C-alpha cells in the first residue's frame, strides 16, 4: 500500500513507526499539522487530510522518571531499581507527542533540563508476536 493511501487510523501510524517513519497528518483545507495523525481537523472540521513525515527533531517540554512502573514496563525490565524517563516532546514542526526519552539519567532527574533538543529514536520492545516498535526520543 502506498504511503499516501493509508487511512488515518492509529494502526497506520504504528505501521509507519515499524518502518522507522514518524508520520503526522496535514489538513488539506487549513494546512494545520497533527501528530498523532488525525482523520479530521479539529480547527476547520475538514476530513481531507494527507500524511506528512516529521523531521523527528524537537525539544523536551516536560518529563518524569518513573519508579513505580506499569506491568508492560516491568516486563521490559524497568522498575524501582531501573527507572525510565518519559516525556512530552514538541516537534520543530509544531505538534507535541508523548514518548519514552532515552539517554537521560532517570536516577538524577534533577539534572534533566526542560528545553533540551531531542531527536527521534525507534525503540524495539516486547518478544515474538508482541514485538513492536515504540516511539522514543534521545538527546540530539
Amino acid at each position, binding site marked *: 500500500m502506498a504511503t499516501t493511501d493509508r487511512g488515518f487510523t492509529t494502526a497506520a501510524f504504528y505501521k509507519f513507526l515499524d518502518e522507522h517513519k514518524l508520520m503526522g497528518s496535514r489538513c488539506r483545507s487549513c494546512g494545520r499539522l497533527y501528530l498523532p495523525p488525525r482523520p479530521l481537523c479539529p480547527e476547520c472540521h475538514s476530513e481531507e487530510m494527507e500524511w506528512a513525515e516529521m523531521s523527528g527533531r524537537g525539544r523536551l517540554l516536560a518529563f*518524569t*522518571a518513573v519508579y513505580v512502573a*506499569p*506491568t508492560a514496563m516491568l516486563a521490559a525490565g524497568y522498575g524501582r531499581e531501573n527507572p525510565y524517563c*518519559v516525556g512530552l516532546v514538541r516537534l520543530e514542526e509544531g505538534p*507535541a507527542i508523548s514518548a519514552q526519552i532515552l539517554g537521560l539519567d532517570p536516577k538524577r532527574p534533577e539534572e534533566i533540563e*526542560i528545553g533540551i533538543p531531542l531527536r527521534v529514536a525507534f525503540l524495539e520492545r516486547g518478544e515474538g508476536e508482541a514485538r513492536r516498535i515504540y*516511539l522514543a526520543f534521545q538527546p540530539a
Partner: protein
Amino acid sequence: MKSRAKAKTKARRGLGRGVALVGAGMSKFGSFPEKAGRDLFFEAFQELRASVDKGLDPEAIEALYLGNYSSDLFEGQGHTAPIIADWLGLTPRSATRIEDACASSGVALRQGVIAIASGLYDVVLVGGVEKMTALPTERVTDVLATGGDALFEIPAGFTFPGFYAAMATAYIHRYGAPLEALMRVGIKNHEHGALNEKAQFNLTIRQIMENKLAKAKAQGRPLPSWADELEFLRDDSANPVIAWPLRLFDCSPISDGAAALLLVAEERAKEFTDEPVYIIGSGQASDGALHSRSELTSIRAAKLAAQEAYAMAGVGPQEIKLAEVHDCFTIAEIIATEDLGFFPPGEGWKAAMEGLTSLRGPKPINPSGGLKAKGHPVGASGAAQVVELWKQLRGQAGPRQVRGEPDLGLAHNVGGTGQTCVVHIFRRG
C-alpha cells in the same frame, strides 16, 4: 480560536428548574478486603438515609446515577449501576452508570441535576463507588493509566502519577516553584484528614513520622533522624519517588469507598429538610491528551468548567468560601487553585507555602483532607467532595468546620489529566 469562544458562549445557558441537595453520606475510605463495591455503596447509602432531616422513604427515589471508573477492571464487574440499585432495593428504577475516569461521580452529579431540571424526575440518588484494593499495586497502576490514551500515551510508558509529574516539571520550570510547595500541600491535607474520621489517613504527616520513629525504637532498629516533616518527606526511604518529582506523599492512595447524594427538585426540598443546600452552578468540559495541549501548567477543561459554573451561579471565585478540589497529586491542587481563579497563574504554589489554603486560612481548600488524605476511590471522589460541602455549608463538619458560617462552596473534580473536568457550586439554603 473560534471553537473555544463558541463553546464558552453557549455554556452560559441555564437549567429548566432548580435542584437541591437534601442528603449526603459516604462510607469510610480505606482498604476493606471483605467489602465489595456494593457493600461500600450500601454503607454510604445508610449514612445518607440518616442525614435526611425529615427522613427518606426509599420509595421516593426515582433514578440512580452512579459514577464508577472501572469496576470492570477492578472487580470483574460490568453493568454496575443496576447491581447497586438492586442491592439498595431500588429496582425497577432506572439505574445509569457514568464513567469519566476520576470525574465519574462529579459528572454523575451533573446528570442528576440535568435529569431533575428536565422535569422527568423529582428525586434522584447520585453517587460513586470504587473498589480498588483487591488488585496488586502494579495492576492498579495499569488500570489508572487507562485513564490516559491507550494508543498514544500508555505505550510511551506514562503512568498516572507520571502524567502529573510531567505537569509538575513544567510548572516548576515555568514558575520556579520549590518542591517544598508540593510538600506543604500534602502536610496541610493530612492535617485536615486527621480531623476527619472517614479519612483513609486520619493522621498528620508528623504523626505518621512519629509513629515510624516509635516503631523503629520499639524494634531496636537504628533511628532515622528527621528534624521535621520536610526532612521526612525528602527522605528517599521514608518517602520514595513514585514518578519524579512526585513521591509517595505527593500521591493520593489506592482506596475503597463510596459516596451518595440525594437530589430533589427545588420546590420539593422542604419535604426533606428545612436546611437544603442548593446546586446553583454546574460546568463540564473535555480535552485531549496532555501532549495535545497548548499549556501544561493549567488544565483548560477545569478553567472552562469553572467559567460555566460561575456564570450559571452568578458568582465569582472571590465569593467562594471553601472548595474541595481534585488533589489526586499535590501539584494538582496548586494548579486547581489557579484554574478556579482563587489565585493568579503561577501564584498557587505561593499560596500553598503561605498557608492561605489551610482550614483557618482565608481560602480553605480541601477541609476534608482531600483525595490525598481522605483517600481516592476514583469513581467516588467527586461525590465525596460534595458530602464534605454538605456538612460544611450546614455547619456540621465538627472539628474541621470552616469558620464564619460559609454560604458558598465549590467542588472541582478532574478526570485523568484533565480530559474531563466538572465543577459545581453550592449555596446554603
